[in-house]
């Protein structure tokens, strides 16, 4: 009989090993899935994980890694702050959209003025503010009325999607677009584009993601805020006694993640995506949740996890074109990764013991005073 025994402290070795184990298990399960779909599993796995990096066309795919990875890392870094403190912002997708709308609106307002030194910084500020304010809605409602931030932030994703459609069809529509929905192309507007070097996949979002990783590392490891976040996550009561203001922490965590998601959206809309369109958002806000957990909510881990997840996006597209693997299979693949990660995480906090069945009645305590938490 297998029995789980709680470890006094989380195992360090397993903390590092579980994400790798989860990736491995996902590859196996994914291989089975691809085989069930009638594809050669080894070819499929190689197409997804190997070809984008090392095949003969990799010089074409590698820049894409930066393009897809940057928003994931940027959003996931923000989310990790809240997740560590037990504050669940799962509406990053909405904050991403609103950030993009605000950034694009500022850029479009200046069109066709030529002043990159002014317009781009203003767009950055607008994007961050847009995401921040959108995230403040669940934050303030939680602090003031005690509403559940999970549900409110998620509802706001659907509101933001409708807002995006309204904007793409209405106020932000390209006046010279011959009636087609969608705004002017910002990536072709010199003063507003976030591209630095399009052929290398470099845009300001990549730079911002790297800055965010370093900043988050410093805050988590060295700053009092990082200490308060970690303390609140592990023991809210202890945090309250040590003088942490929970309301302030909620607003700071939600605000940070909102601002970073908004930034990600703004960099995307004025660079890789180019314009505000109805189908502008592709689910980065939700995939970033997987990235945050896969990276163990640690900045460096998130950077690596973001790279891996970007790889599955690109490899997935290649597999779609070359092997006719359905797009949904990749989505399922990403979902499976999070599942396996959560499943093997039990090894970090518990030790698996073998126990003979006949000892059980004696070993069973008369009363378990409190559940493990």
């Amino acid at each position: 009989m297998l029995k789980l025994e709680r470890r006094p402290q989380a195992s360090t070795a397993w903390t590092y090993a579980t994400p790798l184990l989860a990736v491995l298990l996902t590859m196996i399960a994914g291989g089975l899935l691809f085989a069930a779909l009638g594809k050669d599993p080894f070819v499929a796995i190689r197409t997804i994980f190997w070809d984008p990096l090392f095949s003969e066309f990799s010089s074409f795919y590698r820049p894409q890694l930066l393009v897809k990875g940057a928003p994931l890392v940027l959003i996931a870094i923000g989310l990790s702050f809240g997740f560590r403190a037990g504050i669940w912002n799962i509406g990053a997708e909405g904050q991403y959209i609103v950030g993009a709308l605000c950034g694009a609106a500022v850029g479009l307002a200046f069109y066709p003025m030529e002043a990159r030194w002014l317009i781009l910084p203003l767009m950055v500020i607008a994007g961050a503010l847009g995401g921040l304010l959108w995230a403040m809605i669940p934050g303030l409602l939680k602090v003031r009325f005690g509403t559940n931030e999970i549900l409110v932030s998620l509802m706001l994703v659907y509101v933001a999607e409708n807002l995006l459609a309204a904007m793409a069809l209405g106020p932000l529509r390209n006046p010279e677009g011959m009636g087609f929905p969608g705004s002017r192309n910002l990536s072709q507007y010199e003063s507003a584009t976030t591209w630095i070097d399009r052929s290398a996949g470099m845009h300001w979002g990549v730079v911002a993601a790297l800055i965010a990783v370093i900043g988050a590392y410093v805050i988590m490891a060295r700053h009092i805020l990082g200490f308060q976040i970690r303390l609140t996550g592990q023991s809210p009561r202890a945090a309250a006694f040590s003088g942490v203001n929970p309301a302030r922490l909620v607003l700071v965590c939600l605000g940070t993640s909102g601002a970073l998601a908004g930034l990600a959206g703004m960099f995307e809309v004025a660079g890789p995506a180019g314009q505000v369109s109805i189908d502008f958002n592709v689910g980065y806000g939700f995939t970033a949740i997987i990235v945050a957990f896969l990276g163990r909510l640690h900045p460096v881990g998130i950077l690596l996890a973001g790279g891996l997840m970007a790889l599955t996006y690109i490899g997935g597209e290649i597999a779609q074109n070359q092997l006719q693997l359905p797009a949904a299979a990749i989505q399922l693949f990403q979902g499976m990764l999070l599942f396996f990660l959560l499943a093997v995480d039990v090894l970090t906090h518990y030790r698996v013991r073998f126990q003979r069945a006949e000892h059980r009645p004696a070993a069973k305590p008369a009363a378990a005073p409190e559940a493990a938490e």
Partner: protein
Amino acid sequence: MDLSTINPALLVASLMVAATPILLAAIGELVVERSGVLNLGVEGMMITGAVCGFIAAVWTQNPWVGFVGAALGGAVLALLFALLTQVLLSNQVATGLALTLFGLGLSALLGQGYIGIRAPTLPRVDLGPLTDLPVVGRILFGQDPMVYLSLLIVAGVWAFLKFSRAGLVLRAVGENHGAAHALGYNVRIVRTCAIAFGGACAGLGGGYLSLVRVPQWTEGMTAGAGWIALAIVVFASWKPWRLLLGAYLFGGVTVLQLNLQAGGLAVPVEYLSMSPYLVTILVLVVMSAGRAPGSLGRTFHASS
């Protein structure tokens, strides 16, 4: 704009149809949460139920088999959640999110060949003269069978929680799992059963969407209905009859909004489509005073 085109009796009749998927999903989640488990994967289970039900109905050309398939699909996915949270002791919030992401991917994959076809749908009940009664006839006696079934489930859950011994055990496990364990109840088994029931109900709700309400399969067709169901459980303070009220209130907003769109109100459609979500937020703000089950969302491990 012409508001006179909106017929109040038809409005009430159609709000019941609009509310039924959410009502089904919410009553399942209510039982799950009363047992102390927070399953945020309702959206994932609903959409899986929607696609499983649709496939089963298309294959057999029988909507009832479709609903059984929908319930099974939802329940199987829920058991995956039970395995992770009850056996492998994972964090319930994160696992619920994973379940939703997984369910959305799974349903999109399963439903690939089924886009654009029609499934056999449920006919409305026709009780002859009763259904022909003015106003109330269409509302009370002219719905499809699933609407009545959903009301029966609500009543059944209410009676189960209030009067039965098993319901008492379930509530005990939800209020204080340590004490329930000490009394000799198997916390894990009770919770696993509750989770499976919640999954089956969410699956039924999804099946109702793809088989009756729409009735077609499209990717991501639940469009947040599962999350709204979660919100309605909070709104109802974990009480079955208030849940019914909340779901119908919500159905009313949805239907009214659709009617206003059709009636040609001078507001862009997108702003009207936002209203159900905004109303949900508003409702959460106004009604967040209820008391949640004591052990809600906490992991149980019988450690000595």
